[in-house]
Protein backbone atom coordinates (compact mmCIF):
# COMPACT_ATOMS: atom_id res chain seq x y z
CA UNK A 1 0.00 0.00 0.00
CA UNK A 2 2.76 2.45 1.01
CA UNK A 3 6.09 2.07 -0.73
CA UNK A 4 9.06 4.25 0.14
CA UNK A 5 12.23 3.85 -1.87
CA UNK A 6 15.57 5.39 -1.04
CA UNK A 7 13.93 8.56 0.28
CA UNK A 8 16.22 11.50 0.99
CA UNK A 9 15.25 14.97 2.11
CA UNK A 10 16.49 18.28 3.43
CA UNK A 11 15.24 20.90 5.83
CA UNK A 12 16.90 24.31 5.49
CA UNK A 13 19.65 22.66 3.45
CA UNK A 14 20.36 20.03 6.11
CA UNK A 15 20.02 16.37 5.08
CA UNK A 16 17.77 14.43 7.47
CA UNK A 17 16.55 11.33 5.65
CA UNK A 18 19.39 9.61 3.81
CA UNK A 19 18.01 6.79 1.70
CA UNK A 20 15.08 5.36 3.62
CA UNK A 21 13.21 2.39 2.17
CA UNK A 22 10.10 0.76 3.57
CA UNK A 23 7.20 -1.22 2.16
CA UNK A 24 3.87 -1.63 3.94
CA UNK A 25 1.13 -3.95 2.67
CA UNK A 26 -2.61 -3.65 3.24
CA UNK A 27 -3.65 -5.24 6.52
CA UNK A 28 -0.31 -4.57 8.22
CA UNK A 29 0.72 -2.46 11.18
CA UNK A 30 4.32 -1.29 11.20
CA UNK A 31 6.11 0.55 13.97
CA UNK A 32 9.12 2.81 13.55
CA UNK A 33 11.17 3.42 16.64
CA UNK A 34 14.36 5.33 17.07
CA UNK A 35 16.33 7.78 19.15
CA UNK A 36 15.67 11.53 19.25
CA UNK A 37 16.76 13.28 16.08
CA UNK A 38 16.74 10.11 13.98
CA UNK A 39 14.27 11.62 11.50
CA UNK A 40 11.04 9.95 12.65
CA UNK A 41 8.84 13.05 12.60
CA UNK A 42 10.61 14.25 9.47
CA UNK A 43 9.51 11.06 7.72
CA UNK A 44 5.89 11.68 8.73
CA UNK A 45 5.92 15.34 7.66
CA UNK A 46 7.72 14.58 4.39
CA UNK A 47 5.13 11.96 3.44
CA UNK A 48 2.37 14.39 4.43
CA UNK A 49 3.88 17.19 2.35
CA UNK A 50 4.64 19.79 4.95
CA UNK A 51 6.10 22.95 3.34
CA UNK A 52 9.85 23.22 3.95
CA UNK A 53 10.43 19.44 3.89
CA UNK A 54 12.15 19.20 0.56
CA UNK A 55 12.49 15.81 -1.12
CA UNK A 56 15.96 15.51 -2.64
CA UNK A 57 15.88 11.89 -3.76
CA UNK A 58 13.93 8.65 -3.90
CA UNK A 59 10.22 8.03 -4.23
CA UNK A 60 7.08 7.27 -2.25
CA UNK A 61 3.76 5.97 -3.49
CA UNK A 62 0.37 5.18 -2.05
CA UNK A 63 -1.37 2.37 -3.92
CA UNK A 64 0.98 2.98 -6.82
CA UNK A 65 0.31 6.72 -7.02
CA UNK A 66 3.34 9.01 -6.59
CA UNK A 67 2.78 10.85 -3.28
CA UNK A 68 5.13 13.67 -4.18
CA UNK A 69 3.14 14.62 -7.28
CA UNK A 70 0.18 15.51 -5.03
CA UNK A 71 -0.52 18.53 -2.85
CA UNK A 72 -1.00 17.78 0.87
CA UNK A 73 -4.81 17.97 0.61
CA UNK A 74 -4.77 15.66 -2.41
CA UNK A 75 -2.74 13.08 -0.47
CA UNK A 76 -5.43 13.14 2.22
CA UNK A 77 -8.15 12.64 -0.40
CA UNK A 78 -6.12 9.72 -1.76
CA UNK A 79 -6.40 8.08 1.66
CA UNK A 80 -3.39 9.26 3.68
CA UNK A 81 -3.87 10.40 7.27
CA UNK A 82 -1.17 12.07 9.34
CA UNK A 83 -1.56 11.96 13.12
CA UNK A 84 0.33 14.92 14.58
CA UNK A 85 2.66 14.75 17.53
CA UNK A 86 1.58 18.29 18.37
CA UNK A 87 -1.95 18.83 17.03
CA UNK A 88 -2.44 22.43 15.94
CA UNK A 89 -4.88 24.79 17.69
CA UNK A 90 -7.25 26.73 15.43
CA UNK A 91 -9.12 29.41 17.38
CA UNK A 92 -12.54 30.33 16.01
CA UNK A 93 -13.04 27.13 13.98
CA UNK A 94 -15.05 24.37 15.66
CA UNK A 95 -14.01 20.73 15.38
CA UNK A 96 -17.29 19.90 13.69
CA UNK A 97 -16.91 22.64 11.10
CA UNK A 98 -13.26 21.69 10.55
CA UNK A 99 -14.08 18.01 10.06
CA UNK A 100 -17.13 18.52 7.92
CA UNK A 101 -15.24 20.83 5.56
CA UNK A 102 -12.32 18.36 5.48
CA UNK A 103 -14.50 15.35 4.80
CA UNK A 104 -16.56 17.08 2.15
CA UNK A 105 -13.41 18.46 0.47
CA UNK A 106 -12.11 14.87 0.29
CA UNK A 107 -15.43 13.56 -1.02
CA UNK A 108 -15.55 16.27 -3.65
CA UNK A 109 -12.01 15.39 -4.77
CA UNK A 110 -13.12 11.75 -5.13
CA UNK A 111 -16.26 12.72 -7.06
CA UNK A 112 -18.64 11.81 -4.20
CA UNK A 113 -21.62 13.81 -2.99
CA UNK A 114 -21.08 15.87 0.19
CA UNK A 115 -22.54 14.50 3.44
CA UNK A 116 -25.56 16.39 4.72
CA UNK A 117 -25.45 18.05 8.14
CA UNK A 118 -27.51 15.25 9.68
CA UNK A 119 -25.44 12.43 8.18
CA UNK A 120 -22.26 14.11 9.31
CA UNK A 121 -23.42 14.60 12.92
CA UNK A 122 -24.45 10.95 13.10
CA UNK A 123 -20.99 9.88 11.90
CA UNK A 124 -19.23 12.28 14.30
CA UNK A 125 -21.28 10.99 17.26
CA UNK A 126 -20.40 7.40 16.45
CA UNK A 127 -16.65 8.06 16.17
CA UNK A 128 -16.52 10.36 19.22
CA UNK A 129 -18.27 7.60 21.18
CA UNK A 130 -15.64 5.11 20.09
CA UNK A 131 -12.92 7.28 21.63
CA UNK A 132 -14.94 8.32 24.66
CA UNK A 133 -14.89 11.97 23.61
CA UNK A 134 -17.89 14.12 24.56
CA UNK A 135 -19.73 15.64 21.55
CA UNK A 136 -19.57 18.97 23.43
CA UNK A 137 -15.79 18.89 22.91
CA UNK A 138 -16.34 18.70 19.16
CA UNK A 139 -18.36 21.91 19.26
CA UNK A 140 -15.35 23.74 20.67
CA UNK A 141 -12.58 25.28 18.54
CA UNK A 142 -10.03 22.78 17.16
CA UNK A 143 -7.67 21.72 19.97
CA UNK A 144 -8.03 25.06 21.80
CA UNK A 145 -7.88 24.50 25.55
CA UNK A 146 -7.66 20.71 25.10
CA UNK A 147 -5.32 18.77 27.39
CA UNK A 148 -2.56 16.69 25.77
CA UNK A 149 -4.68 13.55 26.08
CA UNK A 150 -7.80 15.22 24.70
CA UNK A 151 -5.85 16.44 21.66
CA UNK A 152 -4.67 12.91 20.87
CA UNK A 153 -8.15 11.49 21.34
CA UNK A 154 -9.57 14.21 19.10
CA UNK A 155 -6.98 13.25 16.46
CA UNK A 156 -8.26 9.68 16.54
CA UNK A 157 -11.86 10.91 16.23
CA UNK A 158 -10.69 12.82 13.14
CA UNK A 159 -9.14 9.63 11.79
CA UNK A 160 -12.37 7.73 12.44
CA UNK A 161 -14.45 10.30 10.59
CA UNK A 162 -12.08 10.69 7.64
CA UNK A 163 -11.63 6.89 7.36
CA UNK A 164 -8.22 6.80 5.62
CA UNK A 165 -6.54 3.81 3.96
CA UNK A 166 -3.12 4.56 5.38
CA UNK A 167 -2.47 6.24 8.73
CA UNK A 168 0.92 7.56 9.79
CA UNK A 169 0.69 8.27 13.50
CA UNK A 170 3.51 10.40 14.90
CA UNK A 171 3.90 9.81 18.62
CA UNK A 172 0.19 9.48 19.15
CA UNK A 173 1.05 7.96 22.54
CA UNK A 174 2.92 10.99 23.87
CA UNK A 175 1.07 12.91 26.55
CA UNK A 176 -1.31 10.04 27.31
CA UNK A 177 -1.88 8.50 30.71
CA UNK A 178 -2.45 4.74 30.95
CA UNK A 179 -6.25 4.93 30.69
CA UNK A 180 -6.13 7.26 27.69
CA UNK A 181 -3.48 5.06 26.09
CA UNK A 182 -5.83 2.06 26.29
CA UNK A 183 -8.70 4.03 24.77
CA UNK A 184 -6.55 5.44 21.97
CA UNK A 185 -5.02 2.00 21.30
CA UNK A 186 -8.47 0.42 21.10
CA UNK A 187 -9.56 3.28 18.81
CA UNK A 188 -6.66 2.70 16.40
CA UNK A 189 -7.49 -1.03 16.29
CA UNK A 190 -11.20 -0.44 15.72
CA UNK A 191 -10.67 2.12 12.95
CA UNK A 192 -7.58 0.80 11.18
CA UNK A 193 -7.10 -2.93 11.90
CA UNK A 194 -8.76 -4.00 8.67
CA UNK A 195 -7.58 -6.00 5.67
CA UNK A 196 -7.78 -2.99 3.35
CA UNK A 197 -5.99 -0.52 5.64
CA UNK A 198 -2.52 -0.08 7.05
CA UNK A 199 -0.83 1.84 9.87
CA UNK A 200 2.64 3.23 10.44
CA UNK A 201 3.17 3.98 14.13
CA UNK A 202 6.02 6.28 15.04
CA UNK A 203 6.94 6.01 18.68
CA UNK A 204 9.75 6.23 21.21
CA UNK A 205 8.31 3.66 23.55
CA UNK A 206 7.13 0.09 23.59
CA UNK A 207 4.03 0.84 25.68
CA UNK A 208 1.67 1.82 22.80
CA UNK A 209 2.66 -1.45 21.11
CA UNK A 210 1.11 -3.38 24.02
CA UNK A 211 -2.26 -2.13 22.78
CA UNK A 212 -1.67 -1.89 19.04
CA UNK A 213 0.31 -4.98 18.15
CA UNK A 214 2.66 -4.32 15.21
CA UNK A 215 3.43 -6.93 12.59
CA UNK A 216 6.82 -5.38 11.90
CA UNK A 217 9.13 -3.11 13.87
CA UNK A 218 11.85 -0.95 12.32
CA UNK A 219 14.64 1.04 13.88
CA UNK A 220 15.32 4.43 12.33
CA UNK A 221 18.71 6.00 13.01
CA UNK A 222 20.75 8.54 11.09
CA UNK A 223 18.02 8.96 8.47
CA UNK A 224 17.85 5.27 7.48
CA UNK A 225 16.16 2.07 8.60
CA UNK A 226 19.02 0.24 10.28
CA UNK A 227 17.19 -2.81 11.54
CA UNK A 228 13.83 -4.51 10.99
CA UNK A 229 12.13 -7.38 12.77
CA UNK A 230 8.96 -8.64 14.38
CA UNK A 231 7.28 -7.36 17.56
CA UNK A 232 10.09 -8.87 19.63
CA UNK A 233 12.44 -6.15 18.32
CA UNK A 234 10.48 -3.50 20.22
CA UNK A 235 10.94 -5.44 23.45
CA UNK A 236 14.63 -5.83 22.77
CA UNK A 237 14.94 -2.05 22.20
CA UNK A 238 13.10 -1.35 25.41
CA UNK A 239 15.39 -3.71 27.31
CA UNK A 240 18.73 -2.81 25.83
CA UNK A 241 18.38 0.72 24.48
CA UNK A 242 18.88 2.08 20.97
CA UNK A 243 22.64 2.46 21.18
CA UNK A 244 23.12 -1.25 21.79
CA UNK A 245 20.72 -2.40 19.07
CA UNK A 246 21.90 0.14 16.48
CA UNK A 247 25.53 -0.83 17.05
CA UNK A 248 24.81 -4.57 16.84
Amino acid at each position, binding site marked *: MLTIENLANEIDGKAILKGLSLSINAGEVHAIMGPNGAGKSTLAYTLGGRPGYEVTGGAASLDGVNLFSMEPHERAAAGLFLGFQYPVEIPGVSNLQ*FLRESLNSQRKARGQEPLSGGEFIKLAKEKAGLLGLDMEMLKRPVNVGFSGGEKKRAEMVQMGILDPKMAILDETDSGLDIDALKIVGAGINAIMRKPDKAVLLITHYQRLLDYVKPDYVHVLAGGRIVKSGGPELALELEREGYAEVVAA
Partner: protein
Amino acid sequence: MTALALPTRKQEEWRYSDLEAVASIWPTPAPTRIDVAAGETSRHHLLQDASEGAAAVHDYVITIADGARCDFHVLNIGGKLGRVTFKVTLGKGSHFELNGAIIGGGDQVLEIITSVTHAEPDATSGQTIRSILGQRATGSYLGSINVARDAQRTDAFQSVKAMLLDRTATANAKPELEIYADDVKCAHGATVGELDRQALFYMASRGMDPATAKTLLLKAFVAGVFDDVADEAVKDRLEAAALAKLEDLV
Protein backbone atom coordinates in the same frame (compact mmCIF):
# COMPACT_ATOMS: atom_id res chain seq x y z
CA MET B 1 -18.55 81.38 0.38
CA THR B 2 -15.53 79.53 -0.96
CA ALA B 3 -15.42 75.90 -1.89
CA LEU B 4 -13.65 73.62 0.58
CA ALA B 5 -10.04 73.00 -0.36
CA LEU B 6 -9.08 69.49 -1.35
CA PRO B 7 -7.37 67.65 1.49
CA THR B 8 -3.62 67.01 1.27
CA ARG B 9 -1.41 64.27 2.59
CA LYS B 10 -0.05 66.66 5.20
CA GLN B 11 -3.32 66.32 7.06
CA GLU B 12 -2.95 63.33 9.33
CA GLU B 13 -6.39 61.90 8.67
CA TRP B 14 -5.74 61.89 4.91
CA ARG B 15 -2.18 60.63 5.04
CA TYR B 16 -2.90 57.13 3.68
CA SER B 17 -5.89 57.98 1.49
CA ASP B 18 -6.29 57.93 -2.28
CA LEU B 19 -6.43 61.66 -2.93
CA GLU B 20 -6.94 61.25 -6.67
CA ALA B 21 -10.10 59.25 -5.99
CA VAL B 22 -11.21 61.83 -3.44
CA ALA B 23 -10.69 64.62 -6.00
CA SER B 24 -12.96 62.77 -8.44
CA ILE B 25 -15.93 63.14 -6.09
CA TRP B 26 -15.00 66.41 -4.37
CA PRO B 27 -16.76 68.01 -2.57
CA THR B 28 -17.95 64.94 -0.73
CA PRO B 29 -21.54 64.86 0.51
CA ALA B 30 -22.38 66.53 3.81
CA PRO B 31 -21.96 64.30 6.87
CA THR B 32 -24.85 62.21 8.13
CA ARG B 33 -25.85 63.46 11.57
CA ILE B 34 -27.04 61.09 14.23
CA ASP B 35 -28.29 62.55 17.49
CA VAL B 36 -29.20 60.06 20.18
CA ALA B 37 -31.48 61.61 22.80
CA ALA B 38 -30.85 61.14 26.52
CA GLY B 39 -31.49 57.60 27.68
CA GLU B 40 -32.20 56.26 24.16
CA THR B 41 -30.49 53.39 22.35
CA SER B 42 -29.78 53.76 18.68
CA ARG B 43 -28.45 51.13 16.27
CA HIS B 44 -26.92 51.76 12.86
CA HIS B 45 -24.99 49.95 10.20
CA LEU B 46 -23.27 50.68 6.93
CA LEU B 47 -22.44 48.21 4.19
CA GLN B 48 -19.96 50.14 2.06
CA ASP B 49 -19.92 48.10 -1.14
CA ALA B 50 -19.47 50.74 -3.84
CA SER B 51 -18.90 49.32 -7.31
CA GLU B 52 -15.44 48.59 -8.64
CA GLY B 53 -13.46 51.71 -9.45
CA ALA B 54 -15.89 54.04 -7.64
CA ALA B 55 -14.98 56.33 -4.76
CA ALA B 56 -17.20 56.44 -1.68
CA VAL B 57 -16.82 58.68 1.35
CA HIS B 58 -19.26 58.40 4.25
CA ASP B 59 -18.90 60.85 7.12
CA TYR B 60 -20.90 60.51 10.33
CA VAL B 61 -21.23 63.08 13.08
CA ILE B 62 -22.75 61.41 16.11
CA THR B 63 -23.82 63.06 19.32
CA ILE B 64 -24.83 60.78 22.17
CA ALA B 65 -26.69 62.52 24.99
CA ASP B 66 -26.50 61.66 28.69
CA GLY B 67 -27.14 58.02 29.47
CA ALA B 68 -27.76 57.14 25.80
CA ARG B 69 -26.15 54.43 23.70
CA CYS B 70 -25.17 54.14 20.05
CA ASP B 71 -24.10 50.91 18.33
CA PHE B 72 -22.58 51.10 14.87
CA HIS B 73 -21.59 48.17 12.62
CA VAL B 74 -19.67 48.83 9.45
CA LEU B 75 -18.45 46.57 6.68
CA ASN B 76 -16.08 48.42 4.36
CA ILE B 77 -15.41 46.39 1.19
CA GLY B 78 -16.30 48.31 -1.98
CA GLY B 79 -14.84 50.79 -4.44
CA LYS B 80 -11.40 52.04 -5.40
CA LEU B 81 -11.59 54.23 -2.32
CA GLY B 82 -13.94 53.43 0.56
CA ARG B 83 -13.67 55.85 3.44
CA VAL B 84 -15.89 55.91 6.51
CA THR B 85 -15.36 58.49 9.22
CA PHE B 86 -16.94 59.02 12.63
CA LYS B 87 -16.85 62.13 14.80
CA VAL B 88 -18.47 61.11 18.05
CA THR B 89 -19.21 63.18 21.13
CA LEU B 90 -20.28 61.35 24.26
CA GLY B 91 -22.46 62.82 27.02
CA LYS B 92 -22.44 61.87 30.67
CA GLY B 93 -22.65 58.13 31.28
CA SER B 94 -23.27 57.35 27.60
CA HIS B 95 -21.82 54.58 25.43
CA PHE B 96 -20.54 54.30 21.88
CA GLU B 97 -19.70 50.97 20.31
CA LEU B 98 -18.15 50.57 16.85
CA ASN B 99 -17.60 47.15 15.30
CA GLY B 100 -16.01 47.27 11.88
CA ALA B 101 -14.47 45.06 9.25
CA ILE B 102 -12.37 46.07 6.26
CA ILE B 103 -11.84 43.50 3.51
CA GLY B 104 -9.93 44.62 0.44
CA GLY B 105 -8.04 43.36 -2.58
CA GLY B 106 -6.75 44.69 -5.91
CA ASP B 107 -5.65 48.31 -5.51
CA GLN B 108 -8.42 49.22 -3.08
CA VAL B 109 -7.88 51.84 -0.39
CA LEU B 110 -10.29 51.28 2.49
CA GLU B 111 -10.31 53.42 5.60
CA ILE B 112 -12.07 53.81 8.89
CA ILE B 113 -11.27 57.06 10.67
CA THR B 114 -12.64 57.82 14.10
CA SER B 115 -12.47 60.66 16.55
CA VAL B 116 -14.29 59.89 19.78
CA THR B 117 -14.59 62.67 22.34
CA HIS B 118 -15.48 61.86 25.92
CA ALA B 119 -16.70 65.31 26.87
CA GLU B 120 -18.45 64.39 30.14
CA PRO B 121 -17.77 61.97 33.01
CA ASP B 122 -18.65 58.25 33.18
CA ALA B 123 -18.97 57.56 29.46
CA THR B 124 -17.66 54.39 27.85
CA SER B 125 -16.65 53.57 24.29
CA GLY B 126 -15.42 50.51 22.43
CA GLN B 127 -13.99 50.16 18.94
CA THR B 128 -13.18 46.78 17.40
CA ILE B 129 -11.78 46.73 13.87
CA ARG B 130 -10.66 43.70 11.86
CA SER B 131 -8.99 44.13 8.46
CA ILE B 132 -8.15 41.55 5.82
CA LEU B 133 -6.04 42.81 2.95
CA GLY B 134 -4.80 41.04 -0.16
CA GLN B 135 -2.91 41.91 -3.34
CA ARG B 136 -2.00 45.61 -3.31
CA ALA B 137 -4.84 46.83 -1.11
CA THR B 138 -4.36 49.34 1.70
CA GLY B 139 -6.49 49.26 4.81
CA SER B 140 -6.23 51.96 7.44
CA TYR B 141 -7.67 52.58 10.84
CA LEU B 142 -6.87 55.94 12.36
CA GLY B 143 -8.63 56.43 15.64
CA SER B 144 -8.27 59.10 18.24
CA ILE B 145 -9.85 59.13 21.65
CA ASN B 146 -10.04 62.53 23.29
CA VAL B 147 -10.86 62.73 26.98
CA ALA B 148 -11.80 66.20 28.26
CA ARG B 149 -10.64 67.55 31.62
CA ASP B 150 -14.03 66.90 33.22
CA ALA B 151 -14.55 63.46 31.74
CA GLN B 152 -13.50 61.50 34.84
CA ARG B 153 -14.05 57.74 34.96
CA THR B 154 -13.94 57.46 31.19
CA ASP B 155 -13.51 53.85 30.05
CA ALA B 156 -12.48 53.43 26.41
CA PHE B 157 -10.84 50.76 24.28
CA GLN B 158 -9.64 50.28 20.73
CA SER B 159 -8.85 46.82 19.42
CA VAL B 160 -7.36 46.72 15.92
CA LYS B 161 -6.17 43.60 14.15
CA ALA B 162 -5.13 43.26 10.55
CA MET B 163 -4.34 40.19 8.46
CA LEU B 164 -2.22 40.48 5.32
CA LEU B 165 -2.74 37.83 2.65
CA ASP B 166 0.08 39.06 0.41
CA ARG B 167 3.36 40.80 1.05
CA THR B 168 2.22 43.60 -1.26
CA ALA B 169 -0.80 44.57 0.88
CA THR B 170 -0.59 47.31 3.48
CA ALA B 171 -2.26 47.78 6.84
CA ASN B 172 -2.06 51.03 8.79
CA ALA B 173 -3.26 51.06 12.37
CA LYS B 174 -2.95 54.21 14.41
CA PRO B 175 -4.78 54.36 17.71
CA GLU B 176 -4.24 57.67 19.48
CA LEU B 177 -5.13 58.91 22.93
CA GLU B 178 -5.38 62.48 24.11
CA ILE B 179 -6.27 62.59 27.77
CA TYR B 180 -6.82 65.63 29.99
CA ALA B 181 -8.66 63.95 32.87
CA ASP B 182 -6.78 61.96 35.53
CA ASP B 183 -9.17 59.15 36.45
CA VAL B 184 -9.42 57.34 33.15
CA LYS B 185 -9.13 53.83 31.73
CA CYS B 186 -8.08 53.69 28.07
CA ALA B 187 -6.83 50.52 26.43
CA HIS B 188 -5.61 50.09 22.92
CA GLY B 189 -4.02 47.30 20.98
CA ALA B 190 -3.01 46.86 17.36
CA THR B 191 -1.58 43.81 15.62
CA VAL B 192 -0.76 42.95 12.03
CA GLY B 193 -0.28 39.32 11.05
CA GLU B 194 -0.48 36.67 8.37
CA LEU B 195 -2.43 33.42 8.07
CA ASP B 196 -1.08 30.71 10.38
CA ARG B 197 0.95 28.37 8.16
CA GLN B 198 0.83 25.55 10.66
CA ALA B 199 -2.94 25.73 10.75
CA LEU B 200 -3.05 25.74 6.94
CA PHE B 201 -0.92 22.59 6.75
CA TYR B 202 -3.00 20.92 9.47
CA MET B 203 -6.16 21.66 7.49
CA ALA B 204 -4.57 20.45 4.24
CA SER B 205 -3.48 17.23 5.96
CA ARG B 206 -7.15 16.58 6.69
CA GLY B 207 -8.04 17.05 3.04
CA MET B 208 -9.21 20.64 2.97
CA ASP B 209 -8.34 22.44 -0.25
CA PRO B 210 -6.33 25.65 0.25
CA ALA B 211 -9.16 28.06 -0.67
CA THR B 212 -11.58 26.43 1.78
CA ALA B 213 -8.94 26.40 4.52
CA LYS B 214 -8.04 30.06 4.03
CA THR B 215 -11.68 31.12 3.93
CA LEU B 216 -12.39 29.24 7.16
CA LEU B 217 -9.46 30.88 8.96
CA LEU B 218 -10.43 34.32 7.68
CA LYS B 219 -14.06 33.82 8.69
CA ALA B 220 -12.82 32.97 12.17
CA PHE B 221 -10.67 36.11 12.15
CA VAL B 222 -13.60 38.45 11.44
CA ALA B 223 -16.12 36.39 13.42
CA GLY B 224 -17.48 38.35 16.29
CA VAL B 225 -17.53 41.69 14.49
CA PHE B 226 -21.19 41.20 13.54
CA ASP B 227 -22.19 38.94 16.45
CA ASP B 228 -24.28 41.53 18.25
CA VAL B 229 -26.12 43.03 15.30
CA ALA B 230 -29.63 43.01 16.75
CA ASP B 231 -31.55 42.77 13.47
CA GLU B 232 -31.07 39.21 12.13
CA ALA B 233 -31.75 40.23 8.53
CA VAL B 234 -29.07 42.94 8.71
CA LYS B 235 -26.67 40.53 10.36
CA ASP B 236 -27.21 37.93 7.62
CA ARG B 237 -26.69 40.55 4.94
CA LEU B 238 -23.43 41.83 6.47
CA GLU B 239 -22.09 38.32 7.05
CA ALA B 240 -23.02 37.16 3.55
CA ALA B 241 -21.37 40.22 1.98
CA ALA B 242 -18.21 39.67 4.06
CA LEU B 243 -18.06 35.99 3.08
CA ALA B 244 -18.58 36.71 -0.63
CA LYS B 245 -15.76 39.27 -0.52
CA LEU B 246 -13.47 36.78 1.28
CA GLU B 247 -14.17 34.09 -1.27
CA ASP B 248 -13.23 36.55 -4.02
CA LEU B 249 -9.93 37.25 -2.29
CA VAL B 250 -8.57 33.76 -1.58
